[in-house]
């Protein structure tokens, strides 16, 4: 796996997602149940807003002093007998890991869930070197056995698969003969994986947070596989994005709290582990410990206008509330990082050539920004991407012409006045029964699926009403206005004109202008 999970066009991927009724059902119900669980977990902590602010401060402080904390982390890991490698690129990172494994003449690798190892294409590189790599997170294991089906969620990678599909994968690939009961499937996977843990020579983990003053790696998991990966093989390699660091365990505690509650609505996950090289006198832990710190474009992000994106703690809460993710699913993003945070960081890591659609896959509803436990202004960063895409001339000519024209007429009272004067007659040929039924480009996108009212005549418009009603002879103006309003409503109707007796004109008018409520057409 690499950052990119699908070479097809965004539109094709989106249609695939929209057409996958099962996936949409699974994502929808996961979102709905996680919403309640997350809220409960957040409120029981107390003033959630203050916790978010604290989380944001910790992340921003660490990013501002990243050089210091990374130096401290590296010193402490080395002091404890571990080795540290700073990788500028994904090639350097996966190359180093390959070298460590080759130096040991090792073949058998177990791995716990790690997004950054996907990003650096580690599995691919190690497979080329002849290693057997086993993903031990249940979700990741299912995907691996299904011919490396890409993950569709940061936290729940196999969210798009149901129990029947999982049973089929296990039956096809592993000769599983049981039924689709989740407990049976899990017991089976556990038995297979237990053997793999015991055989493994190398354990590779990700890193939720590196604790700088201890030189330790903090893992947050629910299945316990991370602990086995770290404890059983003689050599452990932990891989971290260079921003995933906290000064001390005090900050780790705050962020773990935010992470568990935001990700899965738990107070804590089943396993919160702090690990590192085996110290003298300790009975378990790896004999050899390597920490790979991956830059792969992060320094550029740190130096630029998207720095806040590096605050991300990979909780996936923004995916769990995103109405777009809800309907298209994770695969449509074409990246191992889907959802709102994926739409922000994927173009930063992979470039606009491949990912310029992602920042537009958002209605800018702000649900992501609202839920983010470390207060990344996600929807604002999407707008920032759009600004960059525009300023680099990457938008289509039609879009540019329309938007430049819109900019002109939205800023000019004169032009807008003419528009109000002409809108009705300009749209007359496009309309039937007061609704626009055909039109150029953007209008087509609207009326393809929705009704759209025709603009009103200038004399029936709000501005005309406001001006006219202020005439000194108020009574006369009022009559005329009422009459005109009735005619406006009448323009929209085929059989009925004017307000019904005993009902407020505006009620009729409002409903008839949009819905079918007041419209007998």
């Amino acid at each position, binding site marked *: 796996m690499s950052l990119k999970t699908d070479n097809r066009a965004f539109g094709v991927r989106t249609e695939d997602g929209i057409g996958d009724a099962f996936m949409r059902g699974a994502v929808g119900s996961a979102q709905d149940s996680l919403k309640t669980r997350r809220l409960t977990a957040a409120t029981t902590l107390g003033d959630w807003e203050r916790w978010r602010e604290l989380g944001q401060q910790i992340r921003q402080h660490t990013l501002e002093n990243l050089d210091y904390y990374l130096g401290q982390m590296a010193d402490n890991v080395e002091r404890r007998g571990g080795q540290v490698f700073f990788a500028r690129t994904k090639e350097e990172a996966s190359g180093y890991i390959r070298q460590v494994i080759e130096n040991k003449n090792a073949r058998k690798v177990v791995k716990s869930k790690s997004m950054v190892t996907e990003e650096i294409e580690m599995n691919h590189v190690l497979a080329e070197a002849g290693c057997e790599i086993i993903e031990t997170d249940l979700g990741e294991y299912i995907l691996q056995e299904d011919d490396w089906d890409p993950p569709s969620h940061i936290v729940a990678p196999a969210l798009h698969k149901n129990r029947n599909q999982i049973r089929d994968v296990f039956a096809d690939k592993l000769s599983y003969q049981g039924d689709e009961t989740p407990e049976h499937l899990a017991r089976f996977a556990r038995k297979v994986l237990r053997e793999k843990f015991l055989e493994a020579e190398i354990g590779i983990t990700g890193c939720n947070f590196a604790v700088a003053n201890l030189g330790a790696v903090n893992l947050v998991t629910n299945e316990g596989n991370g602990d086995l990966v770290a404890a059983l093989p003689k050599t452990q390699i932990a891989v971290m994005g260079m921003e995933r660091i906290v000064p001390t365990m005090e900050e780790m505690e705050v962020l773990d709290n935010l992470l568990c509650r935001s990700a899965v609505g738990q107070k804590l996950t089943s396993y919160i582990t702090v690990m590192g090289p085996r110290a003298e006198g300790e009975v378990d832990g790896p004999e050899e410990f390597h920490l790979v710190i991956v830059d792969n474009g992060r320094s550029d992000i740190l130096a630029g206008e998207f720095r806040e994106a590096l605050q991300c703690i990979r909780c996936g809460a923004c995916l769990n509330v995103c109405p777009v993710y809800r309907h298209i699913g994770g695969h449509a993003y074409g990246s191992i990082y889907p959802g709102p945070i994926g739409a922000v960081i994927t173009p930063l890591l992979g470039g606009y050539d491949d990912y310029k659609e992602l920042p537009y896959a958002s209605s800018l509803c*702000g649900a992501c920004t609202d839920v983010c436990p470390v207060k990344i202004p996600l929807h604002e960063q999407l707008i920032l991407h759009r600004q960059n895409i525009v*300023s680099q001339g990457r938008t289509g000519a039609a*879009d540019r012409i329309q*938007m430049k024209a819109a900019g002109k007429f*939205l*800023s000019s009272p004169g032009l807008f006045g003419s528009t109000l004067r002409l809108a009705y007659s300009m749209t007359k040929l496009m309309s039937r029964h007061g609704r626009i039924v055909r039109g150029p480009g953007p209008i087509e996108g609207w009326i393809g699926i929705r009704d759209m009212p025709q*603009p009103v005549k200038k004399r029936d418009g709000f501005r005309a009403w*406001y001006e006219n009603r202020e005439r000194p002879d108020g*009574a006369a103006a009022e009559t005329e206005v009422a009459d005109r309003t009735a005619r406006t409503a009448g323009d929209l109707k085929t059989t009925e004109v004017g307000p019904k007796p005993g009902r407020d004109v505006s009620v009729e008018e409002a*409903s008839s202008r949009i819905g079918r409520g007041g419209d007998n057409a």
Partner: protein
Amino acid sequence: MKVSIFSTCLVDLMFPGVGRAMVEVLERLGCETDFPASQVCCGQPTYNSGYLEESKQAMINMMLAFEHSDYVVGPSGSCIAMFHEYPHVFAGDPQWEMKAIALKEKSYEFTQFIVRVLGVTDVGAKLEGSATYHRSCHMTRLLGEAETPFLLLENVDGLQLEPLKNSDNCCGFGGTFSVKMPRISEQMVDEKSACVAETGAEYLISADMGCLMNIGGRMSRTGKEIKVMHIAEVLNSRPAAVKGGIYA
């Protein structure tokens, strides 16, 4: 109290009844209104599409149009939220930053103004029937106003409010999103329409015409019966006996 009316371009082009209702309610509550005629659009369509320079021109036009206003009130949580974004857009701009802050500080969404500034929660409206309310994302999340529509609707005589399932999910409008990503928008508005229809309510109410055009337009196209009303029209609904006294 002097209030400048910000009509919004959707109301200007298509929904005069909404602007009218807003003015009538405000005046009934004792406000003196004016309408700065050079106003056009808050700039959101181009801003959200990434066309920053084009948007700034629209924003500057609005800052100038409302420069001498005491209060600016508009019937859209989304457009007012855009005003509130101006200081961010013009941060560090010596010519416009202060004006942007000034406009933000005096701008209110219609229901927000009634409750937060006028201190009124009962406007004496009467509307018989059941209704469900769609909270617009921009009003709730960007403007940060989730309460005032409900405080006012609770006091509308005869109106029964039905809870809307998944009310915090976006309806799929998103301005240019609805035409740039029509297929995704369609899925979103279909789910929203289904939730609205499920309430069995007679009226769908919101404080943003963009959302109402989207949900109402989709429901109309798919044959789901509902009467769509902007909250200003609801609050302007009067018992028949006092109707006609509006201008007195």
